[in-house]
């Protein structure tokens, strides 16, 4: 196949990827978009196969590798529970990172295979810079994503690991990577050890960058690693002079960056402070003191069922606690029962309600909640004042009015769902404990709040039962 034709086909594949993302602007077009993505990938792979020629053992090797990897991927995609999506995505990011390192190494050792060798069989200086950048970003993505995976999967404590001089150490490692990139380039690619040193340092840096970030900030981390994997791909796109990789890298890189921004805004945290870490580790010890004197109005499932049934408009506010308790299906049944009573039910989702961007929407979709009943914070916040009941299940901090009126609160300034404007606020909670940041929610002690203490799933089921 001619080089020019291949280049055009790679461009087409890049455009198909753009269309894949474009489809996601609406759930109706999203499925078609996903097919565009698949077509783009198939086109890129076929083009490459035609470029390298289908002769000999090469194709057999490729078929074996694709069968092994693809089979594993397909099984994972089928089996994975939706609650585990964040760790799955983190795991997948790590693979992209590793892949970038391997491809960069292959380009260093056999530049002729990629058609980027100079007449002497070596590599151009620019290619060396690009491929070592790709390897470094890929290595950071690899170990960083593994740490994120371990934290999200609960195999590693979500507590931030901080030590003295951490940021200086990271800075030092970053400088070391830069120095060795210069060294490798100056040697004209001869000093291959420098490449492996860059990779090793970047692997360590990936771990060090993610360990200080607390479990609560994981939505930002997952998005950020998504972005990194894109930049790694883009760097190699420059090395391999491949348009499909360049375009994809740019798309994925900016997508991850935008999602990180949205997550940071949802928590009112600056990106820098998330990166520097240390948040969400210590639970405020003071919280217990001032609760003792105040009274909490507790309700039973029957009380809740009675109020809900007689309401005109109910807004459900689900949080990650709901997913942990696997209460989404019970919740859907309760809402169906409510709708039969003629109650208007909608759902309000906070940007950081789940463990990754849009996670709660997926969990509700899985429970067969229609997506046009689910609203984002800015679209529904004004509706709470017309609602008779705000039903908060497994959420806490995202409903805390202290974020709006108490400048001393650690979450002051964070956008919150204004559930307190509803006639009655119901909280399903296991206990009166505080949220992830150890912040007490003053809503618990208000007159129009009814606390429903118990397991989210059991409580929702009893409410549904009490309605009949």
């Amino acid at each position, binding site marked *: 196949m001619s080089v020019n034709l291949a280049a055009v086909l790679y461009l087409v594949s890049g455009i198909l990827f*753009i269309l*894949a*993302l474009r489809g*996601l*602007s609406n759930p109706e077009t999203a*499925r078609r978009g*996903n097919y565009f993505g698949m077509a783009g*990938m198939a086109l890129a*792979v076929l083009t490459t196969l035609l470029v*390298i*020629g289908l002769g000999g053992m*090469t194709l057999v*090797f*490729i078929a074996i*590798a*694709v069968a092994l*990897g693809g089979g*594993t991927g*397909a099984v994972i*995609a089928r089996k*994975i529970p*939706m609650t585990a*999506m964040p760790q*799955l995505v983190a795991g*997948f990011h790590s*693979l992209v990172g*590793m*892949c970038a390192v391997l*491809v960069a190494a*292959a*380009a*260093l*050792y056999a530049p*002729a*295979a*990629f058609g980027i060798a100079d007449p002497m069989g070596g590599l151009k200086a620019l290619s060396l810079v690009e491929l070592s950048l790709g390897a470094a970003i890929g290595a950071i993505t690899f170990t960083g994503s593994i740490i994120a995976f371990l934290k999200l999967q609960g195999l590693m404590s979500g507590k931030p690991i901080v030590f003295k001089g951490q940021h200086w150490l990271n800075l030092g490692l970053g400088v070391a990577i830069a120095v060795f990139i210069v060294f490798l380039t100056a040697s004209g690619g001869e000093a291959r050890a420098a490449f492996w040193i860059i990779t090793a340092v970047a692997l360590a840096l990936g771990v060090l960058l993610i360990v200080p970030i607390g479990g609560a900030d994981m939505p930002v981390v997952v998005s950020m690693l*998504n972005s990194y994997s*894109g930049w790694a*791909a*883009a760097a*190699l*796109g420059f090395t391999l002079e*491949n348009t*499909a990789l360049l375009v994809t890298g*740019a798309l994925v*890189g*900016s*997508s*991850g960056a935008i999602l990180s921004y949205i997550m940071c805004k949802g928590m009112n945290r600056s990106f820098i402070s998330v990166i520097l870490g240390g948040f969400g580790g210590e639970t405020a010890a003071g919280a217990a003191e001032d609760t003792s004197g105040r009274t909490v109005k507790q309700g039973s499932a029957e009380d809740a069922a009675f109020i809900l049934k007689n309401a005109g408009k109910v807004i459900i506010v689900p949080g990650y606690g709901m997913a942990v308790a696997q209460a989404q299906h019970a919740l859907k049944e309760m809402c169906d029962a409510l709708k039969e009573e003629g109650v208007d039910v909608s759902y309000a989702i906070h*940007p950081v309600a*789940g463990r990754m*961007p*849009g996670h709660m*929407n*997926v969990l509700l*979709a899985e429970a*067969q909640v229609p997506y*046009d009943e*689910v609203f*984002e914070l800015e679209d529904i916040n004004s509706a709470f004042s017309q609602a008779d009941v705000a039903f908060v299940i497994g959420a806490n901090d995202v409903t805390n009015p202290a974020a709006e009126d108490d400048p001393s609160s650690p979450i002051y300034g964070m956008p919150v769902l204004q559930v307190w404007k509803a006639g009655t606020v119901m909280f399903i909670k296991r206990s009166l404990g505080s949220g992830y940041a150890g912040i007490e929610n003053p809503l618990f002690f208000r007159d129009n709040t009814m606390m429903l203490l118990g397991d989210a799933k059991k409580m929702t089921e009893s409410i549904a039962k009490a309605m009949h």
Partner: protein
Amino acid sequence: MEAVDPNIYRLAIFVLAIFVGYYVVWSVTPALHTPLMSVTNAISSVIIVGALLAVGAAAAGAGDGAGFAQGLGFVAVMLASVNIFGGFLVTQRMLAMYKKKEKPAAPKPETEQ
């Protein structure tokens, strides 16, 4: 006048693609942010292109490094395949779950888009 270095064109494609990405991603409805992440993950595995070229290193007559590059390429193709199949299929599985309300109700747009 001397010719423009092809790298400059690549840089131009890259920068313009970042802008395309910026606008396309902002138009993604927040309800689909998780599928967005899984599908971007799947498409970033287009790095398999590099991996395939590495596997073909021997055929390309890449010299003494070819065997090593082939080994690396084999592993990379495998890892990227996990991602391609896993990423697209899990996205498809998620997207299949998004359903509209059955009975026609008052049309209330989910977002401004």
